[in-house]
């Protein structure tokens, strides 16, 4: 369905940053590329908001690229289709929203961490990465997902490597990610190839139609390849090894942006493939769901446990991200509307949490030049705004009420109580609680250093981070509180989105 008056809306989130990116490269180093990227992110955010509203009001939107619609007698268009329903509209809005806060934040951090002459290239890569993430989310074509996935990944490798000016380990981190990411992408494309062999189509909706009732070794292998490939990109335990160093050594603004968006988009892809493309008729899905429940729980504990012992705050937060992905997988694994909704809600909320946390750490790196725990000693006295922002978003990560983390935890526990898996519901809930406690320990460790450790005696006086960074960080911190009270966007949209996904999964395709 097209939106009355705004027929071209669905394509804009991809086209705007895509066109803007190469222009950035032509600009003079300094403020111009940054201001341009910021402007683009804001415009894109507005577009995605319009899109979300349109989808909420009018239902899913389909857009045939270049007008290559379905020829007569064929169910699917021959060209690339963009397909937006509530699930991806929500993720789109999230990605663009995070970008519109992180891009303005990036200025001082980038100035200090990256070679001045490279700034146009940096913002170009950033915009391309942004394009890729939006493209992956918006497209309704399985192969197009791969294309955008590579667009975002390739630019991400470059962005992470730019952290090398601060710490040369960024280069190995980036290279590791490149190898792992490429394997993941290859797995994905092999999976798509197998599905194409079986069905002759790449359109997701069409795939769903064609796959109905098909369950042979080839389709199963395709499914396994896709899930594994995305699982690698998602940093699902035990395929997570690239993530900690990549987040740790990347420039601070990049850590904040990636932690809040990249893995979230992959969660969406998993949801899309599991429920929209394959669906419950596909018996093999059960295997994946059971695997997710185990991997989710293992990830929650293993990664949280590792996080407790990290000496670098960025790395600690990176491991925490892996643990949080465990929660999302757990939500998916329930295979219920509540579970999938909980997963989507956590995607949204965790993006807010991690963006705020990484932005806070970025402020510390800017002023103190390090993200080691030692740098955080007595931070509440030296940089009170940053420290308290970190504490509030840290509490949100733990799941303390009055923050979004509580909503996530609540919905996940609520979903867990209503499931019937091979693990008793109460046990799952208690495990969720227990792993939250691990989060409480590592966040407590950080808060302890900031609040109670004395400032090192030989420390030079430091100023607070620049206003721009502090304000953008606090926008994220306040969003953590705001979306506790305003759950329409998260719970409301996510529940309907999950409903739509599962309806398709159960084969009531029309219920979109």
């Amino acid at each position, binding site marked *: 369905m097209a939106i009355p008056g705004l027929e071209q809306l669905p394509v804009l989130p991809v086209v705007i940053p895509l066109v803007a990116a190469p222009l950035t490269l032509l600009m003079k180093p300094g403020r111009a590329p940054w201001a341009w990227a910021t402007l683009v992110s804001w415009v894109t955010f507005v577009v995605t908001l319009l899109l979300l509203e349109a989808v909420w009001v009018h239902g899913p939107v389909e857009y045939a690229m270049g007008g290559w619609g379905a020829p007569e007698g064929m169910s699917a268009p021959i060209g690339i289709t963009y397909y937006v329903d509530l699930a991806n509209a929500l993720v789109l809005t999230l990605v663009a929203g995070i970008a519109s806060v992180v891009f303005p934040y990036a200025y001082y951090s980038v100035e200090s961490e990256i070679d001045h002459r490279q700034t146009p290239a940096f913002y170009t890569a950033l915009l391309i990465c942004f394009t890729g993430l939006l493209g992956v989310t918006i497209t309704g074509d399985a192969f197009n997902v791969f294309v955008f996935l590579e667009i975002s990944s390739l630019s991400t490798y470059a962005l992470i490597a730019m952290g090398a000016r601060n710490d040369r380990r960024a280069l190995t981190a980036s290279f590791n990610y490149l190898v792992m990411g490429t394997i993941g992408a290859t797995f994905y494309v092999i999976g798509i190839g197998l599905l194409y062999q079986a069905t002759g189509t790449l359109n997701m909706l069409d795939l769903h139609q064609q796959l109905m009732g098909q369950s042979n070794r080839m389709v199963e292998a395709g499914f396994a390849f896709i899930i594994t490939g995305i699982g690698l990109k998602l940093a699902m335990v035990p395929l997570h090894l690239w993530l900690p160093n990549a987040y740790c050594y990347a420039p601070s603004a990049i850590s904040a942006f990636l932690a809040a968006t990249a893995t979230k988009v992959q969660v969406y892809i998993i949801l899309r493939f599991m429920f929209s493309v394959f669906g419950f008729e596909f018996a093999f899905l059960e295997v994946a769901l059971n695997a997710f429940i185990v991997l989710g729980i293992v990830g929650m504990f293993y990664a949280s446990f590792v996080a407790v012992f990290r000496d670098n705050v960025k790395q600690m937060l990176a491991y925490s991200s892996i643990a949080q992905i465990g929660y999302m997988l757990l939500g998916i694994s329930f295979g219920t509307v509540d579970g999938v909704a909980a997963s989507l809600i956590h995607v949204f909320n965790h993006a807010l949490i991690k963006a705020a946390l990484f932005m806070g750490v970025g402020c510390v790196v800017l002023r103190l030049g390090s993200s080691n725990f030692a740098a955080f000693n007595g931070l509440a006295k030296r940089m009170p705004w940053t420290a308290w922002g970190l504490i509030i978003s840290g509490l949100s990560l733990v799941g303390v009420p009055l923050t979004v983390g509580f909503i996530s935890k609540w919905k996940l526990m609520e979903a867990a109580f209503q499931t019937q898996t091979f693990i008793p519901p109460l046990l799952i809930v208690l495990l969720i*609680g227990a792993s939250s406690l691990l989060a409480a320990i590592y966040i407590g460790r950080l808060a302890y250093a900031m609040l109670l450790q004395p400032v090192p005696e030989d420390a030079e006086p430091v100023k607070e981070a620049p206003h721009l960074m502090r304000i953008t960080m606090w926008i994220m911190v306040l969003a953590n509180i705001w979306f506790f*009270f305003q759950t329409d966007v998260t719970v409301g949209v996510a529940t309907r989105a999950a409903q739509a996904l599962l309806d398709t999964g159960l084969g009531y395709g029309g219920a979109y």
Partner: protein
Amino acid sequence: MLSLLSPEMAMYISLILPIFGLFGIMLADKVPNVREGVTLVTGAIVFYMAIIVAVAVSGGARPGFEVAEIIPGLAIRFEVEPLGAMFGVIASGLWIVNSLYSIGYMRGTHEKHQTRFYMCFAIAIMSALGIAYSANLLTFFIFYEVLTLSTFPLVTHKENEAARNGGRIYLGILLGTSIGLLLPAIVLTYVLTGTTEFTLGGLFAGGAEGPILMATSPVIFVLLALFAFGIGKAALMPIHPWLPAAMVAPTPVSAFLHAVAVVKAGVFGILKVVIFIFGVDFLAEGWAADFFLWLAAFSVLAASAIAMTQDNLKSRLAFSTVSQLSYVTIGAMLATSMGVAGGATQIAAHALGKMTLFMCAGAIYVAHHKSLISEMRGLGRKMPFTFIAFIIGAFSIIGLPPMAGSWPKFMLMWSAADAGHQLVFVVLIASSLMNIVYLLTPMLRGFMDPMSSGLKFDKDCLAEAPLFCLVPAWITAIGTIVLFFYIEPLIAFLEPVTGAIGFGG
């Protein structure tokens, strides 16, 4: 008439005013007299508001308002019933007494960061009132967590190694049990019933349509376990170690928070859950409560036994608190009207009594820097007013008339005998005897024994603590005697919640 304010307005004010007080305290950082003035004025107004609310509640009103609905069936909402009104009055009233005492103590011991100290107290009192007035489990949980977090800086006030270790245990256990057990319990309640509202007669008992679950269902046992251990502030063994660990805090913190606000928030929560979530009669039908009855009885005895071995007066009082809190849990788990009423009156009586004891312990420390009982021999002759106040408080804890503590113990014994739990009856008597041993002997030796060698006095006159330390202790000590005579109005006030208890019936 008492006031021109509606009870709703009084609730608003009492929940918001401490925040303004907080900023006032912050602004008056450099002028201690103004700063303490702000605390006292805030305290006085909040207390007055709590009285207005309590008067309205005693007239049958149930004032309340909703702040925000988070998810359907899940709102931040306040509504006061008698139990909460009582807790509100106790907490806000004793805050004033404690603030007076804090002035004497904090200045007497030259503590640092006094502004932060008073700020955190303001948040703590706000969250205690939030707990008292909460209309559902979600609101209760929110303020429960705020209370934990706001008291953490108070526990670690001294900022030395011992304070940090104590603080770690404090925060670890309270946050751990609340997120790990209490939150699942609340979510499960929500999943089973679709709401978390405190409902008179019990949410699970379920009004006209009949119960949602069988009273004998194992789910009830699981839920009760999650609640009983999840509300860690009730210090039911084995969730008690945070309480002794919190004794590293300055004494006003121990006196007010760890004898009144925090621990009473815990047992208040247990009572609320038993009365409003399960329902007293519903719980009495099943078998789930029995286990916790025995556990609470065990807590009473074990904590008393540990208390006897403590030489540090504050740790001895802390274990005594663990033991006394389990009285309330016993009252709740007896699941009878009389038991619940006994538990509720114990909240009031123990608050007054234990606060007296803590304030006396602090007064001894301020005057002579002694915290070990073995160093206090003969000290009573130098500080008779402090020691006599301590003895009055101890009488109340032991349960001797004419002190308030005798009533709850009487009601609990009655109810235990009535419900056929003779062993609990015996436990309560044994506990009284143990109380005598560990609370009274040190004080009597303070008067009888020769002066211990560490104490040296130049002149032969009294060496009392500052008046700001001494007077508050006497206020609460006299309070225990007053409450003894006015227990009947209190029981009548609570009757709509506990049900008619019918003495002699």
